[in-house]
């Protein structure tokens, strides 16, 4: 391996970047299709699992980034989500429980030229691997972390997870869990992630679009995908994600646009003091009174407020909550190496070994 360098032709995030190739060198590769990203391994999730959709959308958006297959790496932890790398015809590493972000951090530090995805679940990312999510996000490691949130431990056959609702009865909590669940996106924001988003397994178009946005972000990305486990927690999100109700119970975030939702686009989110409030448009409330989404706001307050909103009190926000730019971990690391090289030139081993106080023994 030659010393890897940071690709410089990378675009920033944001709508303008959407159609531009990520790297000029990679743009030259033969146009790939979804099929190129399907591996020869038989997919072994339960029939009807939401993971199928996430896999399909992931394979679908992959050609758009302009990366050659060999320059893309999928790293996963343990859980049902952890199997995804086996089904992607890229480089893949199915690691150990909760630790995928650590391997991704080391890989990205050594190889800034690669596009690195981390595939994880609610237990993997927020329970056993919580510490690594916190630190990979705050370091702004350039990884696209996709967390499948099904609010249950599926692979171990149905125990409560850190996102399970309080009181939930599971095999491990027959009298109901007594643990308050965490809000994954609130954690990502508190951890200083530079890109925070949410989508839903069954909303294929939105999922595709959000995966696309995630892939184009440079820096730490935390994408939560609400995913149905039809065996151990069936219908966990149906109350607001079903086709018939979703428009009234979910808030589709669009940068620069007022927060309007509802089948008839007649409801909105207004700020009342420090609190969000659902309001009916008309009768004295106009679009101008509503909160306008700003995913690029430097301060995280608006994004944090959105991360706390949940049905039935509020429509559940989906889309990009936050997308800001900050130098990435690998850029800063390489920067320090470049500085040292500029200061003293490439390291000379002979000189290094003889540094400090030396003396010569010449008597036989």
């Amino acid at each position, binding site marked *: *391996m030659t*010393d890897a360098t940071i690709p410089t032709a990378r675009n920033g995030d944001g709508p303008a970047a959407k159609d531009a190739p990520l790297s000029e060198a990679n743009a030259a590769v033969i146009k790939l299709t979804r099929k190129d990203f399907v591996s020869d*391994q038989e997919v072994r999730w339960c029939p009807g699992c939401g993971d199928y959709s996430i896999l399909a959308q992931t394979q679908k958006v992959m050609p758009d980034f302009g990366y050659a*297959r*060999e*320059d*893309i*790496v999928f790293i996963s932890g343990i859980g049902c989500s952890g199997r995804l*790398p*086996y089904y*992607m*015809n*890229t*480089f*893949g*590493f*199915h*690691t*150990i429980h909760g*630790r995928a972000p*650590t*391997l*991704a*951090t*080391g*890989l*990205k*530090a*050594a*190889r800034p*030229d*690669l596009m690195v995805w981390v595939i994880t679940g609610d237990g993997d990312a927020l329970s056993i691997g919580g*510490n*690594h999510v*916190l*630190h990979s996000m705050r370091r702004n490691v350039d990884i696209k972390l996709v967390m499948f949130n099904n609010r249950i431990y599926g692979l171990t056959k149905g125990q409560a997870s850190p996102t399970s609702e309080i009181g939930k009865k599971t095999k491990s909590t027959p009298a109901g869990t007594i643990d308050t669940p965490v809000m994954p996106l609130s954690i990502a924001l508190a951890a200083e992630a530079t890109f925070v988003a949410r989508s839903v397994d069954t909303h294929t178009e939105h999922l595709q679009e959000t995966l696309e946005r995630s892939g184009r972000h440079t820096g730490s990305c935390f994408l939560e995908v609400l995913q149905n486990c039809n065996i151990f927690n069936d219908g966990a999100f149906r109350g607001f994600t079903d086709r018939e109700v979703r428009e009234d119970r979910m808030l589709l975030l669009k940068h620069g646009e007022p927060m309007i939702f509802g089948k008839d686009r007649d409801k909105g989110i207004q700020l009342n003091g420090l609190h969000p409030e659902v309001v009916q448009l008309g009768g004295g409330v106009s679009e101008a009174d509503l909160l306008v989404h700003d995913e690029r706001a430097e301060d995280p307050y608006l994004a944090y407020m959105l991360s706390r909103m949940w049905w039935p009190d509020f429509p559940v926000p989906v889309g990009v909550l936050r997308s800001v730019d900050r130098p990435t971990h690998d850029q800063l*690391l390489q920067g*320090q*190496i470049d*500085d*040292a*090289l500029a*200061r003293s*030139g*490439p*390291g000379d*081993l*002979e000189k*290094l*070994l*003889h540094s*400090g*106080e*030396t*003396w*010569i*023994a*010449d*008597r*036989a």
Partner: protein
Amino acid sequence: MTTETVPQQDQGVQELERVTIRFAGDSGDGMQLTGTQFTRTAAVFGNDISTLPDFPAEIRAPAGSLPGVSGFQLSFSSNEIHTPGDEPDVLVAMNPAALKTNLGDLPPGGALIVNQDAFTQQNLTKAGYASNPLTDGSLKKYNLFEIPVSTLNARALEGLEMTNKQVDLTKNFFALGLMFWLYERSMEPTLRWIEEKFGQKPVIAEANIRALKSGYAFGETTEIFHTHYRVPSAHLAPGVYRNVTGNEATALGFVAASKLARRPIFYGSYPITPASDILHQLSGYKEFGVRTFQAEDEIAAIGAAIGASYGGAMGMTASSGPGIALKSEAMGLAVMVELPLVVIDVQRAGPSTGMPTKTEQADLLQVLFGRNGDSPMPVVAPATPAECFDYAIEAWRIALKYMTPVVYLSDAFLATGSEPWRIPDVADLPNIEVDNHTDRATFQPYARDPETLARPWAVPGTAGLEHRIGGLEKADITGNVSYDPENHHRMQTLRAQKVAGIARDIPHLQVFGPSAGDLLILGWGSTYGAIRSAAERLQAQGHAVAHAHLRHLNPFPVNIEDVLRSYRRVLIPEVNLGQLLMLIRARFLIDAVGLDKVRGKPFRIAEIEEEALRLLDTRRTP
């Protein structure tokens, strides 16, 4: 002793072969610095040296208290030496607590230099003295020198704009200056060090210079010491030398390995005593492309290292026992995915947090067996601080050639102890370069090299080599997930065979002394010096005793059994309760005898010598 009792005509120079000095004082007294300065000076002069820093885990325990005592022992000689000395010839005690905790090691007649000013009622009480040992006659059997170090030093610094406290902080250099005079050592290296260190702070620099020089002048002009001593330079093998601690040599060895393998280092680490210094040092080598990463925890440190190795870099992580426990699951992953990785364990006294700054070699079984499943990993262990350089390279040679994680076992004594190191010629270092696999026609993720059984290193970015690896059992050749019972058995066997096969690629176990005889003393790691010296003494007494020292703990050298069976008895001294002993007995059904010492201190030569004599004696009596 007072000046009146010393006849002036006794003033002279006496030549000695070897001197062992111990500096002891409060952790705030700068004893480690004092010891290090004396060491450098003796090293540059050309003595052979060996050092033993001994400091508390508390950064600043209450001043004057027994737990706050910090010590530094160094031995310097005109002959080759292997240990920092069993007992000091000179003890410098900067306060009553230091006297109390260290006096037991000073033999009768030994020189005892104390800072008289520190023997106040308050300090005596803190150290638990009912009466003042300087006046109650309890120190009669020693050669006592009472020197008002604080007062003399303060007088020398008069006129400088410093607080009393600042002035007091320099008294260690007064003591150092005095020792330089006593042992005819030049102040130059330390004066240069002061210039470099305090160049920006002229007052502090001046204070330290004055303290050092006045200590020296005190020795020269007063008549307290009727003799001073000279230890001629040693007959070391010709070459360029520098003094190194084990941790320094380890870091240098890794940088060298990176140059030899033409791959960048990625070093993931979480701060832990006594391994942190390797991180500190490597973080300063950015011009060598070294990427250091202070991780959020031990697990992230090794996870990131594995990720870097997966990407084609030289991923490394270091810790001590408690951190190795946390890394165990990831070490198993590295075994399963067969990626090169070096895991450094700088052992300290355990279990649990144990005694973090004290030495022990009790993680051997942990690194060999402390993982789920049969999980074979090669283990190398340097024997001396200077050897740490060679075994850092050796660890990487094995890791790269065999595509395997390797454990590098050091310990607190090796890590912080120092000795002269003959700097090798870069051209003489081994070539450890390994190519990435790039040929897509022949690529199978778990196809193996017929000789080494290593799988190919196929790094991301290599077109046509896209594949998936992970902790699930791999199908032989293809590397796909497999639950086939026959395959699992085959893969377990292959992993074991791969590591066992390294035995063909490592040096034979060498024997110091007769190739057969009454007793073999077998050791590993930092016990080397004490065992070697004991063997030398026993051989000089005419005993058929040999010493063999293992640097490869897994696999063992191929001739180990032959060596063991060439002696009537085998003695295995270890700073644990018999871990190598258990391995040797289990593997070879040999009735080896252990000598264990787990006191947070290295063996003394005499302890090994005594036990060896006992065994030799048992043989004679029916």
